[in-house]
């Protein structure tokens, strides 16, 4: 924080490194235990997803030996089913880790698309105001008045179960909420002098919205994005559970739970393990969001 006055005013100074700033920001996370725990949980699953191709895992889609318990040996006497197998004899650990890759990819993608749409709606409604605001807010209110569950089922059953349609469904359900947050932030930000300054130098509406306004709304939005990532993970798991998720046979956490339900207590691990995976990832995102909020409020 030291204010170093430059002695050679005429010299052309060099640009400072961005890496340093990034490391400093990560360092701040250490101030909140909650944020550290959340980061750990999220990073754990991200690492699993990234390492899935190189880990010595069994094939997630090949039926081997059904109903093996956690830690059981295979018939060859060497292979260990660390988390057991499901009713079809597929290795739960392999399915869990490959499943983490799928859920993280689609949850991130869906949230990102919802954010792009929601932010554009919000910034336009907030900054342009008037007729734009009324139209966009009306659309958002109509979408928000649908029960989310019905919205998902209608969209997916009409268009078919695929990753792209999940993204679409999540966007429809989340964008109105994001729009409201962004609109609120923009209504406050647009009264600042720097917006006035941009207007008085004749900047266009797009420039002001995208360059002057949105970057300053990022603080609360990052926290909200973490929370929303968690919700989207739940949504994807729920859709998988209802059979509306990503198409089989690739592993999907929600579908894994659904498949294990009929066997009940006979293969409880096949149900409990993916359920715990969903909870831990969602918990990770929520704790991270809480921690970030806590850090940002501290002085």
């Amino acid at each position, binding site marked *: 924080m030291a204010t170093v006055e430059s002695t050679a005013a005429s*010299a*052309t100074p060099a*640009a400072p490194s961005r890496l340093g700033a990034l490391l400093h920001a990560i360092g701040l996370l250490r101030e909140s235990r909650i944020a550290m725990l959340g980061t750990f949980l999220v990073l754990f699953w991200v690492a699993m997803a990234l390492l899935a191709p190189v880990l010595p895992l069994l094939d997630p889609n090949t039926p081997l030996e059904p109903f093996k318990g956690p830690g059981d040996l295979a018939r060859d006497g060497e292979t260990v089913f660390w988390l057991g197998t499901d009713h079809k004899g597929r290795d739960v650990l392999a399915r869990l880790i490959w499943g983490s890759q799928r859920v993280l990819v689609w949850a991130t993608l869906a949230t990102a698309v919802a954010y792009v749409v929601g932010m554009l709606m919000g910034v336009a409604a907030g900054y342009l105001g008037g007729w734009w605001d009324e139209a966009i807010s009306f659309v958002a209110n109509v979408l928000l008045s649908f029960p989310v569950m019905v919205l998902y089922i209608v969209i997916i059953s009409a268009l078919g179960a695929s990753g792209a349609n999940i993204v679409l469904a999540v966007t429809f359900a989340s964008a109105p909420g994001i729009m409201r947050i962004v609109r609120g932030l923009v209504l406050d930000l647009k009264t600042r002098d720097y917006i*006035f300054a941009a*207007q008085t*130098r*004749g900047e266009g509406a797009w420039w002001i919205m995208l360059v002057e306004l949105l970057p300053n709304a990022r603080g609360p939005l990052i926290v909200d994005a973490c929370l929303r990532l968690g919700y989207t993970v739940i949504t994807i798991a729920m859709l998988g559970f209802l059979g509306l998720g990503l198409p089989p046979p690739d592993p999907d956490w929600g579908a894994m739970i659904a498949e294990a339900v009929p066997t009940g207590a006979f293969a409880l691990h096949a149900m409990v393990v993916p359920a715990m995976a969903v909870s831990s990832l969602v918990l990770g995102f929520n704790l991270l969001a809480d921690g970030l909020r806590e850090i940002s409020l501290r002085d």
Partner: protein
Amino acid sequence: MAAAQPILECEKLNISYFTRAGEIPAVVDFDLKVMPGEAVGIVGESGCGKSTVALAIMQYMGKNGRIVRGSIRYKGRDMTRMSEEELRQLRGSDIAMVYQEPMASLNPSMQVGRQLMEVPLVHEQVSEAEARERSLEMLTNVRLPDPRRIFDAYPHQISGGQQQRVVIAMALLSNPSLLILDEPTTALDVTVEAGIVDLINQISEKFGTSMIYISHNLGLIMETCDRITVMYSGEAVEVGEVAEVFDHMRHPYTRGLFSSIPLPGADKNARPLIAIPGQLPLPHQRPRGCYFGPRCGYFQPGRCDQGLIPMTGVAGSPGHDVRCVRYAEIDWEAAKPKRQNTVPPPPGPVVLEVQNLKKYYEISDGSVMALIRGGGVRTVKANEQLDFVAREAETVAIVGESGCGKSTFAKVVMGLETATEGRVVLNGKDLAQTPVQRRRPQTVGLLQMVFQNPFDTLNPSHSIGAQIGRVVKKFGVESDPRKIRQRVFELLDTVKLPRDFYYRKPRQLSGGQKQRVGIARAFAGNPKVVVADEPVSALDVSVQAAVTQLLTEIQNTNKTTLLFISHDLSLVRYLADRVVVMYLGYIVEQGTTDEVFAPPYHPYTEALLSAVPIADTRVKKKHIVLQGDIPSAVNPPPGCPFQTRCPRKLGAICETELPPVRTFGEHRILCHIEPAELLKMEPVIQILPERGAA
């Protein structure tokens, strides 16, 4: 010393905040003594710890603040050792506090009267009827018009000045022995401020309440206090009687403060303000020895940087203490500002001409009641009949209080709004109907603006370089990225900022530095006219002087016309060549600075001049306190805009007819009073000959 026991005594008070960065000592070894019936002023710039002292007296420092050492004794009892319950009894009944923002001190969902009644109900367990009686009486005591209506009103239904009076009434209801006022008038307009100051002075006379008055404004301290404590970087540097300290200041920092405020006699060309170099050190970066050392012109290595400097009494004047080892050696007479001879460029041809400018807003009322009544559209007359010219290299000040239409006028000139009627001619071209999007980039570059709030003027997300560079590119000054960069570096040189600020983000800059960047940005397109909307009002006085000086220098080199919008008449007198006084959308008076500041006056200008506190014991002012508040532009009074508050109102004619413009050469006054009568007015401000050394 007096035999009476002091109401409050702070001894060797040390207060620290505990944050991320560790312990931050906000106040160091602070002593304060308040005698019964005495008003003590604490003055200092932001970050000097004056508000922390107030909060510490209330024992109200939040989670991370703590008194580390020292004592605060209230009537002999040590407050640092009291239990929470004892403190609660004391707060609000024996010690009351008035904060800066009145709206934040009042509960918006409770009627004013109920909030007042709570005080005697809670502290003295009186009956409802008696509480009501006393609350109403107190509302009368703080001279609120129509106390019964105010009693039943909600806070948002009364004006800012009235709110502050209610807060003061609430503080006085428990009949406290000590009243702490923390910048009580900073959020108010000058004429309203004058009323509050008047009230505060009456309180000390009538109730004998001791007061601690915290302010950054030396003039206000002079008008309200008996003794003064000057604070710098967490410690008291000078203590004494107000008159003594003001006339014979013995600390270089106090001297610096006085040299950087525009007192009568200062002149931007002959006797410019002298800013204090450098900036306030952060609490954990305070230097060894004298905290003011690095910024002090009398700094002597080996003496000023050795250990703590004690408070010493000034020889020959009891009660006057100073924290400086060299005070006795400094030749204070020689240190007075010297005359300079800067010759400004003479005013050139007319650059900007405003002719009969009108700006009306229509606000539509969508409520059901409005639909039933058939109304629904009301007109806000923000600007009426604005007529004036600005010449090249000239500074024209537009003066007025909130709601006078000066900001609307700026918006119309900048093209963010179009005029309802009239012309704004820049370089021979009428821009009144051309919004900024339809102006050519060069035209936009000719007319730029410096904004008021340093914390808002720069976009926090982008680097300084990117923000200035964008303007250079936008106005077509340069297009090659390398040349843009070079131009930005030159602009940073012009505003005297180091070049590596190019890569800084606004949050890494102080308020004054941000304002310099704002000036660099405004001058990036080589403008002909710069509109400066209160460019220094949010800055500390020592920084104000530097930024004002910079603005004048750049203006002189570039021969720019400066439209200086301000409510600060001292600064206007110092800076402006011509003055335009606005009230409720009208220009009530205009002329050269000398003409406006001397009789004949418009009655409003006269009151405004009288209301401005001046930190100079030699100045004698006429005492004019306006009644009431500025009317709303939605519902302006008929006839003369000023008739509702005018102390020189003639009668019915003022209420029915718009006054004629009385002209005295270039000097024009909008008033019904005959020119001959106007000429008989006495000057508001008189400077008495300097008192001999005591």
